[in-house]
């Protein structure tokens, strides 16, 4: 039984949830994720841990409303109970002092990027961050990111905040200006694909944290498999971070859409039912 202690919307469709999970709060490290199931009928969905408080025994998750499960999760309130939360899962990010680390986050991918930024900064690295979003309302965690970075660049598609342009433009600006020793990119698969192509041009070692479809999250089902350097790897136990230059993002994109038709249909049906309930 995992109680929601705090909740706020960071933007219209992105909610921050603070959940009581003392064991996970204590054992989680940057890069780890959890799997949760809202209720008896729910599916198991993976979400990256954005923050934790050992003393309070809580973990923080950031969720974007995209389908039935995330919609239900965003509709939960303080005091509500999430039936199942298990973790921390995956391998933790390898944190060391390498020099300058370029961290690029897109959309809700900024959430899992935060603990990595924090750990990289505390390890003594120079940390330069590029945060990208469609518009100013979708930029999240700006203040926290600023606190743990040497420089923060914001890119929006429409120029409503920071600079107008894509994440890759912000990244190139940094790379052309100074020596970057390592890059970390987290965001939608398309964004990571192009961010990886960008750093590859400059031969900068780059990690991408992948968020694929999972069921158990412990290596049992293989739903999360991706090709990395031509070899099949399981994101849940071999990842979630891989050498971004070796990940087959096109295959990953296709696998992310494996249940799209069913998911879209279910979501439409769910929204229709919700409307009926609200109109009554």
């Amino acid at each position, binding site marked *: 039984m995992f109680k929601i202690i705090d909740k706020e919307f960071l933007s219209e469709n992105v909610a921050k949830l603070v959940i009581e999970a003392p064991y996970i709060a204590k054992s989680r490290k940057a890069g780890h994720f959890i799997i949760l199931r809202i209720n008896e*009928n729910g*599916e198991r969905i993976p979400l990256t841990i954005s923050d934790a408080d050992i003393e309070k025994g809580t973990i923080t998750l950031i969720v974007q409303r995209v389908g039935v499960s995330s919609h239900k999760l965003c509709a939960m309130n303080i005091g509500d109970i999430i039936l199942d939360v298990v973790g921390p899962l995956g391998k933790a990010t390898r944190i060391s002092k390498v020099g300058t680390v370029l961290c690029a986050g897109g959309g809700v991918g900024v959430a899992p990027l935060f603990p990595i930024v924090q750990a990289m900064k505390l390890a003594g690295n120079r940390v330069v961050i590029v945060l990208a979003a469609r518009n100013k309302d979708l930029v999240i965690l700006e203040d926290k990111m600023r606190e743990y970075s040497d420089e923060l660049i914001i890119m929006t598609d429409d120029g409503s905040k920071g600079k107008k342009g894509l994440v890759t433009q912000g990244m190139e600006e940094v790379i052309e200006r100074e020596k970057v020793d390592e890059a970390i990119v987290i965001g939608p698969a398309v964004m990571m694909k192009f961010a990886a192509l960008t750093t590859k041009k400059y031969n900068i070692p780059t990690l991408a944290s992948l968020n694929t479809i999972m069921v158990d999250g412990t290596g049992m089902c293989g739903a999360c498999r991706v090709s990395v350097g031509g070899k099949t790897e399981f994101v849940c136990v071999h990842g979630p971070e891989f050498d971004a230059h070796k990940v087959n993002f096109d*295959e990953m994109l296709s696998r992310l859409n494996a249940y799209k038709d069913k*998911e879209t249909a279910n979501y439409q049906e769910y929204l229709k039912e919700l409307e009926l309930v609200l109109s009554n």
Partner: protein
Amino acid sequence: MESDLNKAYYKSERKTDWRDKLRKEIKSKDRANLTRVRMPEADPNIRNKSNIEVNKGLTLEMALKESHRCLDCVVPTCINGCPVGTNIPKFVKYLELGDIAGAAKVLKENNSLPAICGRVCPQEIQCEAECTYVKKMSKEGAAIGYLERFVADYDRENGESTLPTMAKPNGIKMAVVGSGPAGLTVAGELAKFGYDVTVFEALHDLGGVLKYGIPEFRLPKSIVDFEINTIKQMGVKFVTNFIVGKTATIEDLRNEGFMAFFIASGAGLPNFMNIPGENFSGIQSANEYLTRVNLMHGSNKNYDTPVHSGKNVVVVGGGNTAMDSVRTAKRLGAERAIIMYRRSQEEMPARAEEIKHAMEEGVEFINLTSPIEYFADDKGHVNKMKVQKMELGEPDASGRRRPIAIEGSNFEIDVDTVVIAVGVSPNPIIQQSMPELEITKWNTIKVDEHMMTSVEGIFAGGDIVRGGATVILAMGDGRKAAKGMHLYAQSEVMAEA
């Protein structure tokens, strides 16, 4: 196998008055002339559209009649065939006597999950293969599995279910990692010895492969829950959503006072064949397919988890998991549900009963054939597979004849769902968190004759030690490990005193 130690005991028990009397009531020759009972089965064309259990179980009359076939042999070789050493003639003769509660008690002495074993054990290669009828008389063996199921079911349904005899609680804490057959067995045994046992389960539901893997039509989940509840009543605590090695380490748990550990985390990683196109959507491991259907209720529209199960389903493999998958596909509406196996039916590792049931239900078998490539539509969903005919060569390390590809024999099959059931590799999570744990070249955990690993106080069993095996072998490991852990705890307590 523990029967060698018990030979004298079996002999003395056989000589008890009631058994002497029973033996004399019917001549062995007359017993041997009785024909083996047939298991009543649900109609194939009804059951392949529903989740009803295929084997309906014996009636009381059928069970009593079958119990008469058992000759109560001087040397009960059947017991040698049982990985947990069930006292088979004793329970069968209690049944013959009409004392079903007595029979159930005998089963529970050695086996905390008899209703499960009566359903999923491969008796035809274990106890029943060692039956005198099979070994000496070229007859069908006594239907020990059916009788075990009957006794366990009767005992459960008639409310006479009793807890086994328990030792006084000793306050020593023991941890079990995983709630599958091996973990449940250890938990039950240790509770009987008086330990304070906690089982940690990674998933949200208890039972391991009994829940996520074996389908409802072969093993109803209510039966698994009943057996788990019995273990709960014995005082065993269960914690779900807890991954030992992740949520907390073994070291953390030692600090919380656990004296010894049993690792039964199962065979985790599903194997793939590493052929082109294998990562197209619609191609999934048997673990994924069965988990989505069994654990997550993916085919029930009241549940949020989706599952791919199309009209043309090919299941690659010839084991029990492959049969479970293909029969599930049929039930989810497949027009063609096909088993594709690279050897011939003779070499199939699946139980004969599963193969027979699958055939009755309309499953097609394409044997001596193996996939070599998959193709997909513009959305990346599999729509075709290229396969190759095989022939059998000389026997390989497994003793089965090695399949060899026939050049130029390729052909294509239209598919929309493919399930890969070609085995599993051990789950790496525990080893990742405990590098000091010695493992084999197959990544299974090394154990000694007491099932203790290279780390003192940590025991292991089931598929994490064996690779992919059966429920009953996992349970056999559990019984052995429980004894090992008991010995270990006793020596620790002595050392402290």
